[in-house]
């Protein structure tokens, strides 16, 4: 009976192997729940480019493959002399395929695959297909993502690597991430993989239009967060995208506005106009503000007579504020529409933190240990060195707290907190506390 079982398992492994030989076409693998098989039928299902394995055989197949791998093919700790030759590599690959499809969370086995790839016994593109198949069943498998990253790294390093193939690879990668994020909520690994990918592109690519990609990714992530309001993993990715947008060039900025189908300046101005403090002497209307130049707008919002003599990049600062306000407005809408979602409030914290950091930066300050201190400008700190981290006087902090931008934000936040509080959203209270005690606005709110 035991022998019959082994023969059965061998047959199943062979059947799976036969299907896997057409791996480029396969796009999904899963275990089909069939507890008892009444028919003498193969448990290996191959339908419409999907591979399925009936659940009754899983236990036997997995145990068999795993023990053979561990007994015969594990590297003995002391003696690493046994090289893998083509004689046992075929068998090894067959066993690895089955075992990793069933349980991809074994790093030792992924390492065996790495060795095979290094020994040129496995093809890198086939491996990418295989990991995609693994991820189709377990989209949160970090080992598979890590292996993919390793493969991509080695593809990028390879000499025979053709530059124009990068686009295809990247698109494939984005598709895999999309699928993985789609299949499993809060998929930190897939979003993290995406971030890695963008960062990697920045290093590797020379002729790839990164700005366009940033715009595209921001737009995609914005859509995604609007649909998954509790998935902080994708909010985190959205934050990464926002930061990427800070430094994009003029053309890309225009294409961003086009993609989002929105005039970012108008959005900013609308918020400003509706939240202007009452006692401000300059009473500018919405229409007036649209006409302001970048420099004038910044000077109106946050006039600072800076101590250092570096030039302020008004255009860039304006853009940063615009994109952050755009995110803030979107967040407002989401909070109003989807009530009681902690994630949305955390995202709000990020946006406010960014705006406030930009302001501090503008005023030449920084927060250290909860106390505002003067920041030494790195470029022109000629005689600032003697003052070691001087605390700033009340006058300086007053300048920030009395600036228009700051007042606009505070009044805006107060409104949304009030509104949400009426709905019984206790995250609103927490948000207020965060602003008061973490951001240190206790005195001014």
């Amino acid at each position, binding site marked *: *009976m035991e*022998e*019959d*079982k*082994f*023969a*059965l*398992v061998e*047959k199943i492994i062979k059947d799976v192997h036969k299907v896997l030989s057409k791996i480029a076409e396969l796009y999904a693998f899963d275990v089909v729940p069939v507890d*008892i*098989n*009444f*028919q*003498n*039928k*193969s*448990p290996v299902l191959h339908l419409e480019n999907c591979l399925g394995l009936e659940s*009754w*055989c899983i*236990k*036997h197949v997995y*145990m*068999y*493959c*795993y*023990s*053979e791998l*561990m*007994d015969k093919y594990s590297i*003995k*700790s*002391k*003696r690493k*002399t*046994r*090289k893998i*030759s*083509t*004689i046992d590599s075929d068998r090894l690959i067959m066993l690895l395929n089955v075992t990793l499809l069933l349980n991809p969370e074994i790093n030792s086995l992924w390492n065996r695959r790495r060795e095979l790839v290094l020994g040129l016994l496995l093809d890198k593109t086939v491996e990418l297909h295989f990991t995609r198949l693994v991820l189709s069943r377990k989209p949160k498998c970090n080992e598979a993502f890590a292996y993919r990253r390793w493969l991509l790294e080695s593809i990028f390093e390879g000499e025979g690597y053709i530059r124009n193939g990068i686009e295809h690879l990247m698109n494939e990668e984005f598709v895999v991430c999309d699928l993985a994020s789609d299949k499993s909520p809060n998929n930190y690994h897939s979003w993290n993989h995406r971030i890695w990918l963008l960062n990697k592109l920045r290093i590797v690519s020379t002729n790839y239009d990164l700005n366009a990609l940033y715009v595209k990714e921001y737009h995609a992530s914005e859509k995604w967060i609007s649909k998954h309001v509790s998935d902080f993993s994708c909010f985190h990715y959205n934050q990464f995208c926002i930061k990427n947008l800070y430094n994009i060039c003029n053309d890309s900025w225009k294409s961003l506005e086009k993609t989002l189908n929105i005039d970012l300046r108008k959005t900013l101005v609308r918020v400003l106009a509706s939240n202007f403090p009452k006692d401000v002497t300059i009473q500018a209307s919405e229409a007036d503000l649209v006409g302001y130049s970048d420099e004038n707008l910044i000077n109106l919002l946050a006039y600072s007579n800076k101590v250092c003599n570096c030039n302020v990049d008004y255009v860039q600062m304006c853009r940063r504020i615009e994109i952050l306000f755009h995110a803030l407005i979107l967040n407002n809408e989401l909070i109003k529409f989807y009530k009681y979602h902690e994630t949305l409030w955390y995202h709000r914290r990020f946006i406010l933190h960014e705006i406030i950091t930009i302001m501090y930066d503008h005023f030449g300050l920084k927060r250290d240990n909860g106390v505002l201190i003067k920041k030494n400008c790195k470029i022109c700190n000629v005689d600032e060195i003697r003052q070691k981290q001087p605390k700033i006087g009340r006058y300086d902090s007053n300048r920030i707290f009395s600036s228009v931008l700051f007042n606009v934000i505070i009044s805006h936040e107060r409104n949304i907190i009030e509104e949400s509080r009426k709905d019984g959203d206790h995250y609103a209270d927490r948000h207020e506390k965060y602003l008061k005690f973490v951001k240190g606005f206790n005195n001014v709110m």
Partner: protein
Amino acid sequence: MIYCVRNILFKGVNSIFQIARFSSDDENHINKKLPKELLLRILSYLDVVSLCRCAQVSKLWNILALDGSNWQRIDLFDFQRDVEGPVIENISHRCGGFLRQLSLRGCESIADGSIKTLAQSCPNIEDLNLNKCKKITDLSVQALGRKCSKLQKINLDSCPSVTDISLKALSDGCPLLTHVNVSWCQSITENGVEALARGCPKLKSFICRGCKNVNDKAVSCLATFCPDLEVLNVQGCDSLTDESISQLGGALRRLCVSGCTRLTDAALGALAARCPDLVTLELAQCAHLTDAGFQALARSCRMLERMDLEECVLITDATLVHLAMGCPRLEKLTLSHCELITDYGIKQLSLSPCAAEHLTVLGLDNCPLVTDGALEHLVSCHNLQLIELYDCQMVTRNAIRKLRNHLPNIRVHAYFAPVTPPVTGGGARPRYCRCCNII
């Protein structure tokens, strides 16, 4: 132990003349009482592992154990396959003319240089296995052809760089060749095979699986010039037709033409007429064959023991009737994917004289018309050891259980989940200390 073998193989040759120096002042009892010749004789009965152990006893024993006369037959497959060139060179120097049989199966890093040294120092070699030595090229085989005229068996399976030039060299230099295996050497063509057939008339076995360029002319030459040919394996040579297969001679015992999809009943008729002593016949994927061909075959080839008819999709129960009547020695019969086979054919098979005594393996997988009834008939096949039933969806678990009750030792391969829960997956782990490696 692997290390022991490796180290010993790596060391160069110490002079045989040192025996005298060490034997005179040796104080060990056994060395005093036994003459060197006797010790050598005793050692000659030991296997490789024991010899290597003995070689570490003393300097005298080292010389005796590593004497070439003890190393006439060497197979490195179980010890190490990642051997480099120097190992082979040491072996050939050490063994010299004593070496008769050497297997380097799977030693992938062996290159032409080592084989040249081997051919130079071991001219008496008779059996050389170079299976999967992928770096070997025609240069090696040419060296062998020049020096090793006593070569009888050579295996060049999966050496992709081997071409017709090698076969020519062998045909010129090794007229005693009886066994040649050039499977998966895809550059072999009719020219090489013709030269071989002309130069080596004693050829008994020729295996060229997967050599797509081997055609009718090649097989005709083998049939014409090698009257002793007993084994011919041309699996996957898909350009072969009835023309050449019909010329094969009466010495033929084993024939594999699996994957030669052009063959028709005419080939079977010719085989029936010319090769009455056929024992093994593999015809997988020959989809043109019909009952008529098998009728002729079964009438004359009464010695058939093993038949593989996988994917001969046209055959019906009639073939089984003919085989049951004509081939009383049938042991192993594979009918995978023969979708027209029904219970009636199996019943006829089980009633035949072969069934009760000889039939041991029966492959019925993917025969959709086979039902529980077939298994009931098979109960009379007392010798049946293995039956394949994968994907015969009309066969139930109950029928298999009944069959097992009658034939307790039978192995049944089907897609039914094992009944008893497994105790330890794929067999218990061997209980050796992990740090001391194997053996």
